[in-house]
């Protein structure tokens, strides 16, 4: 059993598929940017960062912004008085599969101007990291943790980037990636066994409760799984706290 897992995981640990970033971004812009004041000013202010823009589903404006200066762009969109996107409704990810970049999608709304804008930020598979916007919108806290959990994108500067939906020691990978099988990588028997060997009393230590300090995050969880996954689970470093 362990051998099979090892080989499964090895393939994943060998690294992601080749990115065809350029090819995917070949699509062109459409729509008249003067219709949406924010898109127009974005093009003026960050001409190099805006990769393209489109109108989706009739009236929804989407702007693709590269990952290098995404934090700067979003800061400006929040703080500039003419934009004032004070509400970050949603942060999520989209994986198209086939080696195309995973996109982080920001849904923003300005309660002052009554405008909505969607920013999509393609993250190449080689890096899989971007900047956190937790310092701008506190609502991004759990949303970014979820993207980290399900897509494996690391948000630099997030104070407490841990898995949120899956168990902390989940060893099978990041479920919403297209290369993740619907029923998981391990057999049902192995999943059941692993589930019942979970220590339900984890997180009892005061140290672990101290959110706010950046935690060490393994960018590639999969490669960190040793040969015998179950031994690793019981000896998790989260156990060293004072249990009750």
């Amino acid at each position, binding site marked *: 059993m362990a051998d099979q897992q090892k080989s499964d995981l090895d393939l994943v640990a060998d690294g992601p598929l080749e990115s065809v970033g350029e090819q995917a971004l070949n699509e062109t812009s459409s729509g008249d940017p003067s219709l949406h004041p924010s898109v127009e000013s974005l093009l003026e202010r960050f001409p190099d960062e805006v990769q393209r823009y489109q109108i989706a589903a009739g009236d929804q404006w989407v702007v693709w912004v590269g990952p290098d200066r995404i934090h700067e762009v979003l800061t400006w969109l929040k703080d500039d008085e003419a934009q004032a996107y004070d509400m970050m409704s949603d942060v999520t990810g989209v994986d198209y599969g086939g080696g195309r970049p995973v996109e982080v999608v920001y849904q923003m709304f300005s309660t002052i101007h009554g405008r909505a804008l969607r920013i999509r930020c393609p993250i190449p598979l080689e890096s899989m990291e971007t900047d956190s916007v937790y310092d701008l919108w506190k609502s991004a806290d759990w949303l970014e943790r979820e993207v980290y959990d399900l897509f494996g994108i690391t948000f630099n500067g997030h104070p407490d980037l841990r898995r949120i939906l899956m168990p902390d020691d989940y060893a*099978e990978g990041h479920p919403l990636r297209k290369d993740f099988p619907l*029923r998981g*990588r391990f057999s049902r028997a192995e999943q059941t066994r692993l589930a*019942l060997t979970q220590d339900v009393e984890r997180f009892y230590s005061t140290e672990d409760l101290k959110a706010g300090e950046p935690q060490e995050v393994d960018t590639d969880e999969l490669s960190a799984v040793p040969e015998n996954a179950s031994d690793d689970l019981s000896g998790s470093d989260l156990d060293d706290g004072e249990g009750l």
Partner: protein
Amino acid sequence: MGLIDKIPGSGSTRTEGGMFGPGSPTFLTSKVDALINWGRMNSLWPMPFGTACCAIEMMASAASNYDLARFGMERMSFSPRQADVLICAGRVPYKLAPVLRRIWDQMPQPKWSISMGACASSGGVFDVYSMVQGIDTIIPVDVYIPGCPPRPEGLIYGLMMIQEKIRQESLSKHFEHRAEDPALVARPRASEQEVIGLSGPFGNSTQQEELSTGAPAASTSIED
């Protein structure tokens, strides 16, 4: 149930306050089994392990329209230490599995369990990476209630089946039936082969490959 024995010649002072009016006997004899089962089945304290949609129907059963109190079950025991019957209502992901197992281990004997709804019984529509495919791989189950979610009538019928089961139990044999191997505490109830068998014919990707090629799966299978 039981036998009413009229004792001839018993003193009139003793029969005066008789059980069934003046002159009737003051005691009855019965089998211990029948008496104890009667007591147990009419004062079941459920431990509601409610997680999802089924829990809402469980609440509806306890509310005024369906009124579980008619069965002596109005006392929902949120502590497993004082509960008799575990009602697992709703989906159970792997993350919750050790919690369910621990709550079952904490319940004192004699105890029964109900798997309410399709998800608890078999995983239901959620044949996915995060869900337990039936809680009977984790804990023993006495009654399965079908439905998604079952109606309150369904839950009540399930509880009545538990009552029927209790009625047929025997004190002398009870612990034989119910004894659990101490080695099983905090361990899956079902064996590895059983769990794999349960996940067929669809199974997970590892097993699918095994089935289709006849060889043990060796590589990552990518489903699109």
